[in-house]
């Protein structure tokens, strides 16, 4: 089914023995018969664009961590280390393909034009959903592990039924592989040949649990059991990520049904800012993945091509500063929701029971001393 020549190990999966890659660790270009045809348009401008995207995303991510540490955000799920996986995908697909993601895909959101304020509001706790999914062709972060995979499949089935050729993408982690929802989604996708891409960022951990607990063989084998062809790729190689994403999107758009990508990568930061990763992984492992930094790899490649990387770095710094300044500004100017807003949008029309509760709530707040009503009521001491 899958017409890739680099699938020696299984006719439905490529990259099983060695994840697909086109940039070696040292930045040299490695030929790959499957991916090379998809990389013919690659020039310096495209490469520096990918570099800048990754650099800016990393800066934004670091800034969000800092904002959380300073108490401006309740929580933040860092994506450090996964920049190539996200940028490679985002820059391969037209902006009308629809993403259904988990919480860690802020790189995708950035590429889709989500503003800093929209990106942060959920993590600051001022809203449950930071942006208009239809404006960005991207659903807002899904917290329930695996749930979004079904949504992507349904969306894809609907575009197909409507005779359109845009596709849906389900983004999830290695941990999600264990959820019933994800496995059910693959059944639906396969049975209905849904135009959907399953995009797994295998960052080696689900909080503290190593990937081996979710899959005792490479994740890329799982979809093959459902009849879904899959590509296992070096997730820290942004060019390969872009190429496999183009490959999969073309396959899916041509009506051949779903495809699965396993991006083999690593979460360099904590699971979230609440996590203490020293409890479950050692410095040696971390260091080995730090050396595989996706940004440094592309930089080495550009250096070999003769790009002025000093100048590129300076440009990255300039753009990062611009982005992080905007992020910082956005966080402090995010509107605080009005207390009564919590009654809004439960149903599409108001119902008397809830109207009554809101009126009682208003009366209660009006009865309080002003300083209590502004902030909150007296609370238990140990909250």
């Amino acid at each position, binding site marked *: 089914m899958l017409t890739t020549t680099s699938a020696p190990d299984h006719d439905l999966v490529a990259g099983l023995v060695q994840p697909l890659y086109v940039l070696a660790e040292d930045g040299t270009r490695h030929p790959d018969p499957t991916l090379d045809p998809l990389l013919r348009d690659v020039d310096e401008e495209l490469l520096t664009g990918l570099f800048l995207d990754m650099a800016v995303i990393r800066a934004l991510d670091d800034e969000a961590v800092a904002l959380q540490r300073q108490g401006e955000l309740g929580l933040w799920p860092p994506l450090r280390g996964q920049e190539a996986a996200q940028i490679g995908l985002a820059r391969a697909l037209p902006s009308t393909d629809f993403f259904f993601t988990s919480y860690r895909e802020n790189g995708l959101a950035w590429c889709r034009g989500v503003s800093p304020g929209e990106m942060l509001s959920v993590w600051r706790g001022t809203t449950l959903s930071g942006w208009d999914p239809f404006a960005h062709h991207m659903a807002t972060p899904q917290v329930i592990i695996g749930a979004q995979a079904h949504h992507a499949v349904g969306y894809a089935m609907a575009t197909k039924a409507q005779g359109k050729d845009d596709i849906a993408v389900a983004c999830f982690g290695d941990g999600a592989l264990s959820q019933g929802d994800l496995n059910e989604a693959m059944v639906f996708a396969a049975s209905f040949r849904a135009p959907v891409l399953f995009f797994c960022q295998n960052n080696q951990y689900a909080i503290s649990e190593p990937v081996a607990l979710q899959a005792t063989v490479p994740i890329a084998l799982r979809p093959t059991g459902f009849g879904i062809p899959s590509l296992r790729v070096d997730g820290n190689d942004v060019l390969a990520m872009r190429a496999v994403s183009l490959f999969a999107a073309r396959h899916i758009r041509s009506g051949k049904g779903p495809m699965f990508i396993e991006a083999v990568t690593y979460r360099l930061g904590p699971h979230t800012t609440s996590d203490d990763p020293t409890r479950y992984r050692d410095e040696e492992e971390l260091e080995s993945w730090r050396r595989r930094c996706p940004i440094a790899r592309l930089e080495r490649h550009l250096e070999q091509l003769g790009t002025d990387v000093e100048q590129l770095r300076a440009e990255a710094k300039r753009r990062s500063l611009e982005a992080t300044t905007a992020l910082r500004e956005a966080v402090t100017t995010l509107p605080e929701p009005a207390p009564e807003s919590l009654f809004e949008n439960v149903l599409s029309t108001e119902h008397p029971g809830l109207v009554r509760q809101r009126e009682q709530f208003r009366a209660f707040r009006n009865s309080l001393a002003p300083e209590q009503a502004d902030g909150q009521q007296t609370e238990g*001491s140990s909250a």
Partner: protein
Amino acid sequence: MTTTPNPAVTTAQATTQTTTMTMAAALNAALRDALEADPDVLLIGEDIGTLGGVFRITDGLKDRFGADRVIDSPLAESGIIGTSVGMAYRGMRPVCEIQFDGFVYPAFDQIVAQVARLHYRTGGTVQMPLTIRIPFGGGIGAVEHHSESPEAYFAHTPGLRVVTVADPQDAYSTMRAAIECSDPVMVFEPKRRYWSKGEVDTTVTADLSSARVLRTGTDATLVAYGPLVVTALEAAVAAEDDGISLEVIDLRSLSPLDRQTVAASVRRTGRLVVTHEAPGNVSLSSEVIASAVEDCFDHLEAAPERVTGFDTPYPPAAVEDHYLPGIDRILDAVDRTLGRRNSREAA
């Protein structure tokens, strides 16, 4: 709750072991002692082994009892519960951790369609001594799905025991009782009280079905459970300043419900206020108030009141303090039952 020392234990050891600890530490001690006491007890859940749980409730237990008895499970709640059903068939007593309240729903089918029914379905032949631990409730500034109060779904389901804990001693004793119980027991742990401290005597036993009167009073009965027990007690102290005497009941068991304790109190006070974080619609307060009306209508001197989460999804953290029942909203409801000035008077 029986707060008398277990006679068997006290005579054997002749000493009590009272220590001040957090609720988290008390739960950890209860799990440790249960694993120690019975080789059939095992723990299973996400991140409970190497990490010790996201709240560290199982901290150190994997090192002590091994990965076969403190099992880091794949990321699948239905799998955690369904697998535990199989283990229970084979005589084990699994203690399952659901990482957060909002993640219990993938396991809903296993809990309500299997765990809750096997004993009934098999005419009592198959026992399901599972303990399902769930940190629940809000007030911690979390993102969506981390502040839910889903207890009513389970209390509504026949075949489950649903209990809550409110302080370290209660947490220790109730957890031990839950693990020893041959029925499936869901234990809802108030996560925002995990770090509150109290004295714990590990020889004290508890039952799984009775409410407890934590403070006696004469003017109104205030019923709470889980995280709001502390709030209710604080409200009672505040009410005292206004010359109002509140009787505070910690419901503890949400199913079965200890109607007798509530009714006995309402017969004394004539007034009833029920509070919880969950939305009020078809909730524990619905049930407690209906029971009181059935059991002691003639003693009620005012319509019962409830102070609950609103009938909305749990809101963003920035406004959760408005959603959660606090002392002032509780006292406002107390005032209504007493015919005192209150927020709705003008309306």
